[in-house]
């Protein structure tokens, strides 16, 4: 019988993981942990407050006391846990501390699942259509991708040092669904949605339910290695806009840069700097490896987008009591 702890359990992904693991047969106990007292009581949950940064020892003691055999780390990349922006750095220090706790002599952990991010993959005209786990990653410094690579490398070191611990790194695509919007979904939730003139990139989203299911699968099967995770299919940007039911608005294919705050305030459609390359060149990952391992996504891209469109229109109507006019971001 498994005994599981989910870190950053107060995030949308963390909460979804708690539910997914509790529904899984063969799981005796599921605990949600946060290192921040302020996040200890999300709706319907009571989380354990156990600091692990910068000192891993309290968490190591917690793991041993609760006889935890499975750690699911949800807060490595903020926007992939349903909070934060695309520019947020990966939490490398937390990963190192969790790894140190897992490596303690009295630890009973035999499975560590990290929710990582597809942001490690390059975005550009030179990229292949489907990016794979085994491809060489560009070496860049002081970028989000670099911090994710560093965290993943640390986790892989732990796997090498502790052969009895299965370390699974799941690179999650941008989140959407169940009220969660990653940066790409947030853009698609707007009405109208900006469409870069002259481009029609291929994109891919991951529904929160699929994300939780994939992480739960990795925990249950005690997977080892790196796996891409996304919902089924891929879709071109203009078709994605149509699928939300929102209007599209052509904009110059450049990031909003310094004008972004002003454009945002005025409700003028624009493309944030962080997303301009993605909307010009696309960003899709190959799921062959995790599908071969036995996991298959349930949600389709159009389904996610239709849900996103409905949710955003409901929010828009609910906020004002009446339908908002055009050029207002949700």
């Amino acid at each position, binding site marked *: 019988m498994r005994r599981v702890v989910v870190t950053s359990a107060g995030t949308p992904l963390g909460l979804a993981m708690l539910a997914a693991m509790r529904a899984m047969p063969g799981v005796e106990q599921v605990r949600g942990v946060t290192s921040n007292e302020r996040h200890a009581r999300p709706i319907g949950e009571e989380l354990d407050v156990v600091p692990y940064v910068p000192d891993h020892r309290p968490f190591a003691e917690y793991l041993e006391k609760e006889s935890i055999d499975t750690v699911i780390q949800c807060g490595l990349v903020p926007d992939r846990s349903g909070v934060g922006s695309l520019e947020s750095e990966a939490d490398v220090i937390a990963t190192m501390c969790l790894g140190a706790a897992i490596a303690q002599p009295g630890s009973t952990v035999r499975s560590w699942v990290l929710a990582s991010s597809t942001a490690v993959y390059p975005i550009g005209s030179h990229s292949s259509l489907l990016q794979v786990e085994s491809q060489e990653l560009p070496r860049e410094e002081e970028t989000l991708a670099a911090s994710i690579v560093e965290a993943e490398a640390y986790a892989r070191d732990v796997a090498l040092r502790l052969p009895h611990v299965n370390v699974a790194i799941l690179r999650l695509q941008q989140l959407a669904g169940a009220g969660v919007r990653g940066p790409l979904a947030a853009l698609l939730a707007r009405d109208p949605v900006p469409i870069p003139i002259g481009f029609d990139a291929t994109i891919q989203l991951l529904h929160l339910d699929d994300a939780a299911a994939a992480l739960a699968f990795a925990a249950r099967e005690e997977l080892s290695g790196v796996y891409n995770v996304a919902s089924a299919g891929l*879709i071109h940007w203009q078709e994605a806009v149509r699928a939300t039911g929102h209007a599209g608005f052509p904009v110059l294919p450049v990031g909003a840069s310094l004008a972004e705050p002003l454009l945002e305030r005025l409700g003028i459609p624009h493309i944030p700097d962080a997303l301009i390359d993605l909307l010009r*060149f696309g960003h899709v990952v190959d799921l062959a490896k995790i599908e071969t391992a036995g996991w298959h996504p349930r949600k389709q891209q159009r389904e996610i987008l239709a849900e996103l469109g409905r949710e955003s229109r409901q929010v828009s109507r609910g906020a004002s009591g009446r339908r908002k006019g055009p050029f207002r971001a949700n």
Partner: protein
Amino acid sequence: MARTFDSDRSPTLDRWGRDLDRSLRDSFFDAAYRSWFRVEWEGLEHLPEESGALLVSNHAGMMPVDGGVIQHGVQEETGRLVYLLAHHGFFRFPFVGRTLKRSGTVVAHPDNAHRLLREDGRMVLVFPEGEKGPVKPKSERYRLQRFGRGGFIETAMRAGVPIVPIVLMGTEDTTPTLLDLEIGGRRMPLTVNSVLFGPLLGAVAHFPAKIRARVLPPVHFDEPPERPSYPRSMLMDRAESIRSDMQDTLDEMVSARESIWRG
């Protein structure tokens, strides 16, 4: 694997962004194909009916029409789609990249080529001469340039598909070279078209040279697919062998030709 990516395709776009419906663009090019260049084919029976194959062709003429001729021609004559690999730089430009994708041009990346050939079972066209073909000096007219380091052989081997050479005669005569210029260390032929029509219009105003296309028998490989690497010297030997056969064929076609305009 393929089924996961089938489900969300737009009704007319495949996963590579190709528009599977006929469009005005196709109609316009069809008029040029049939009436201006009067393209004729031989050896179409050498093209596989269903499975993947790497098509290799000679590459000549400024703003070459060879890619379009082969893509359009094979689709018209056999019903099969041909995908073209192009340098990623083209995809950086608004409208250019999107138009290329819609017409079945894909970023030249080994992974893309492999998926097209092996997973999708498509025919993929490459020009092993690369940019050397269109900018070759006047003295090299009708001479195939070196076929690189044989990367295309490795692509075909790894995907487990045959190579089907296609020799085109007439494409270099659509934009004949008047003078060999060098600008900034790069060869830049001055064509008759650009002298007559100016640099911009001259790039697209091709003379109505008759184009003939001959498909040669496929070249199959015994080496097992999906190997991480293949011996470099073998790749270069095979590449040179294919180039040599294509050169012999082009020489024969040129000497049998009555005129550039009538073929």
